[in-house]
């Protein structure tokens, strides 16, 4: 084991840096820096998505024949680290990272031909129809029904916490197709067009004031049977496959680091106004503890995900990464409000300057130990797999 860059990898890093210098605009960087929600708005992330797609760099986890970048795990690490540190917008993960691999692994030929190019180009924007008002951590108890009627399924029910559904044109959706089977065995995965009649998307305003998530009502929505992923009633296994990509396939240390950089930028601002946050040694000690967490987390991600071939599943250790990433993310936002001190008690109004991001970011970050499998769910998985309980 060694972490020395080969000549090839060093050349790749330089190529990435050149690409970032050339294609990453100030507007994209500023858009990411001013983002207080979990993901940047599409007008910030989609132009960056398109620049990467043009270069052939948008789908590191896909096989090359479907448009994957053909990177090794180490190259993916280099790219994600450099992009995050340069301030590039976070690519919305639901399209390329989540539904893409599922369509590649379980989709029909027709689905691959239809959807994959649209995902790569940035033309399609997907929402995830998993959680329901009565099915959160107990996802398999979901009750949205799909009943076959001729060539269609007729879908009725409601999905909740659907991130960016108001921006999306499609939603991969878990539905119950066999109400009599054991609960995991009666579930199917459908690809639903959100402009279909009967779809109603209503905003849910988050704790930090953002419109990130929605409730999606499905009222007699007709979905062609050809939009079924894989086999009917096998949806739970596809969902589990997808969730492992959601939990642990991202390389997030660079993102956490760039959030720390943002805090330094804000401390610089405070200093120009006569404040002296860096002389507060208690606060700086807290910063150091989080920076150390990030250094260590970077190594955990690299050694877990670096050896994987594209499309290879990280397995249950993804829960460790998800847990650590979410806790460190929260810790960074907690530093943000500690930095503001009493000013963090002001009601967050319009985001005018970068420091206005800190309070909503802190509030919204409470969600990261809840979505994608709550902390308690991850601990349960870790207990079963890594602790052997």
């Amino acid at each position: 084991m060694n972490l020395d860059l080969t000549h090839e990898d060093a050349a790749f890093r330089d190529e990435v840096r050149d690409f970032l210098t050339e294609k990453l605009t100030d507007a994209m960087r500023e858009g990411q820096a001013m983002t207080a929600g979990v993901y940047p708005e599409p007008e910030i992330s989609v132009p960056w998505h398109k620049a990467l797609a043009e270069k052939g760099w948008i789908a590191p986890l896909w096989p090359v024949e479907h448009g994957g970048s053909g990177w090794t795990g180490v190259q993916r690490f280099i790219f994600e680290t450099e992009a995050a540190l340069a301030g590039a917008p976070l690519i919305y993960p639901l399209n390329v990272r989540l539904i893409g691999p599922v369509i590649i692994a379980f989709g029909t030929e027709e689905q691959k031909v239809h959807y994959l190019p649209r995902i790569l180009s940035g033309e399609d924007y997907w929402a995830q129809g998993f959680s329901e008002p009565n099915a959160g951590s107990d996802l398999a108890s979901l009750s949205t029904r799909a009943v076959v009627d001729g060539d269609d399924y007729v879908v009725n029910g409601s999905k909740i916490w659907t991130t960016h559904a108001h921006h999306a044109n499609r939603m991969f959706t878990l539905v119950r197709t066999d109400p009599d089977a054991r609960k995991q065995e009666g579930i199917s995965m459908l690809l639903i067009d959100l402009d279909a009649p009967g779809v109603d998307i209503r905003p849910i305003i988050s704790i930090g004031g953002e419109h990130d998530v929605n409730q999606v009502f499905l009222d007699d929505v007709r979905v062609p049977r050809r939009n079924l992923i894989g086999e009917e009633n096998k949806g739970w296994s596809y969902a589990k496959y997808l969730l492992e990509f959601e939990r642990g396939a991202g390389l997030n240390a660079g993102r956490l680091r760039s959030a720390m950089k943002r805090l330094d930028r804000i401390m610089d601002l405070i200093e120009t106004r006569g404040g002296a946050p860096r002389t507060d040694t208690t606060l700086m000690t807290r910063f150091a503890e989080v920076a150390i967490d990030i250094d260590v987390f970077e190594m955990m991600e690299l050694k877990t995900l670096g050896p994987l071939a594209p499309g290879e599943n990280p397995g249950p250790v993804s829960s460790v990464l998800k847990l650590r990433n979410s806790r460190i993310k929260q810790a960074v936002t907690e530093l943000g409000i500690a930095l503001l001190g009493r000013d963090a008690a002001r009601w967050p109004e319009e985001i005018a300057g970068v420091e206005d991001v800190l309070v909503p970011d802190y509030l919204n970050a409470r969600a990261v130990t809840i979505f994608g499998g709550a902390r308690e769910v991850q601990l349960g998985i870790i207990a079963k797999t890594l602790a052997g309980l």
Partner: protein
Amino acid sequence: MQLELSEEQALFSAEVQRFLERNYDFERRRASLAAPDGINPAVWSGLAELGVLALPYPETMGGLGTDALTLGLVMEACGRHLLIEPVLASTITAGIALAEGGSEEQIARWLAPAITGEARLALALEDMVGTTTRVHAGNGVVRLNGRKAFAPGAAAAHVLLVAAQDDLYLVPADRAGIGISPIRLLDGSQAAEITLDDVAAERLPHGTEALRTALDATLLAACWEAVGAMAAAHAQTMDYVRQRQQFGKPIAAFQVVQHTGAEMAVACEEARAACMLAALVPGSRTLLAARVKVARAAEAVAKNAVQLHGGMGVSDELAVASYFRKLTAFQVQYGSAETHLARYAAEVLAPRHHHSSAVL
């Protein structure tokens, strides 16, 4: 980058692990604990035969010249078995100080027998509070006077490296004027207090720089030992909660126990990653990070290991009590986590090195 262990890295530590499984289980370890100098001679010569005592030195000195990760994995195995023989104090701390700071003649005379297991070395660093070790030169002889407070491995050492006035001095332990009073440490190993009364000594030509290198290597090796001890404590605790029945079922069936076990597993993973980073990307940033992270993780794992054992956790009958003491000793030696955290704030955070990857 090569993200899997190389054959050498994997094989060497596996061999040490096998040796310790055969010769150093919790029962056999009692022989070392019972020995007045904390040494089981058969274990020490076995470690020498395996090459453990030669690991950190260049081949030109008769060492194996292994990389930092291999060394770390061996120390992890030692920690797993709660080895009290002074691999850390003699082979790492004092051995590296001698190899880095000694003259050719000093190295030839003392490192060779240390590698074969015939001699043990120890570093006497800290002065007793309120005292300062002094160096007096006269008639072509250098003499030391002072009192050393806490020298790990010194009770069983044949040669001492004594820090005095910013230099290191070499003194055979049987030389006239030396008094050595053993102290038993919390992890069962031996240290000593030392008095130096006009003791003839010879200076190491590059002692000052060598001391820094040796102490850094010691800290990282101690972190690896702690990682091994944590992994073993975790595994034994998980075994215990699967067996222990209360309320008509194994206590592992309770979610609060499961989550505690999971948190311990995460802490073990993090601590190990921190040590790997420090071994593969050497430097003060990664070493400081490892010290802080492993100390935090060691505290959490040790406390939970005892807690989940219930009453058995606070009896001395099971190994868990020994792991707890070992991990406590790790936390309080080598400079506290808080000291290292403050250094990280000053040396990494203030100049904004944390804005860059620790790896790339």
